[in-house]
């Protein structure tokens, strides 16, 4: 029974991860894409970790899973914020400069 639960967690986690990945390809602009990676990706990983915790069941692993989850919840949004911020800053500056009507943040070669 526990195995089924674990399996479900894994499947759910894997699904979210995959969806998040698809999201960053499908969604139209960068900030929207980041919604996918930040939320769905994080949740996917968390689900999988929970699955692992249930599967192994030892206190050591549970505590490690909790630690990992907390670390992830702490760092993932920060990372997202950093990208978003960099993107937003450059975007805003470009908007202020009408000559630059092309891509946001040109790709530096």
């Amino acid at each position, binding site marked *: 029974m526990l195995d089924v639960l674990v399996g479900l967690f894994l499947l759910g986690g894997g699904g979210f991860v995959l969806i998040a990945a698809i999201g960053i390809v499908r969604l139209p602009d960068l900030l929207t894409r980041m919604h996918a990676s930040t939320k769905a990706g994080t949740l996917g990983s968390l689900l999988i970790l929970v699955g692992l915790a249930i599967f192994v069941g030892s206190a050591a692993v549970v505590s490690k899973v909790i630690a990992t989850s907390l*670390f992830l919840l*702490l*760092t993932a949004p*920060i990372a997202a*914020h*950093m990208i978003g*911020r960099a993107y937003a800053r450059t975007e805003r500056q470009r908007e202020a400069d009408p000559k630059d009507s092309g891509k946001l943040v040109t790709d530096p070669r």
Partner: protein
Amino acid sequence: MNSIIFTAGARILVALVFVFSLFMLLRGHHLPGGGFIGGLLGAISFIVYALACGSEEARKALRVSPEGLAMVGLGIALAAGLVSALFGDPLFTGQWYWVGGDSYETALFSINSVLVFDIGVYLVVLGGILSLTFAFDEET
């Protein structure tokens, strides 16, 4: 950089990663981890610091020069090897002193040269990588 969010996060993360690096160092003999990984993590904690507050601040937080720290680490590693001379063993022979028992099976924990060596490794990696990173950061 001066992102408030990142700086605030860094405050927690620096300490967290640093403690974690020590954790990885100390457990390394029995589980994944060890001096390298610990040192790399330790360096990363200060790199986070440097990213948040600038490498000047990070240097200050480190208190000693990273190059010096690395060199001291090398010295410690070497000393951990040389100490076996006192016991008539070849270089780097592990010297173990068991606390709370008389063998690895019964003892609570041990004081040993192998860990000292790993601490040396930790310091070298920490100092070396920080030295590199700070230099890069300051020169760009």
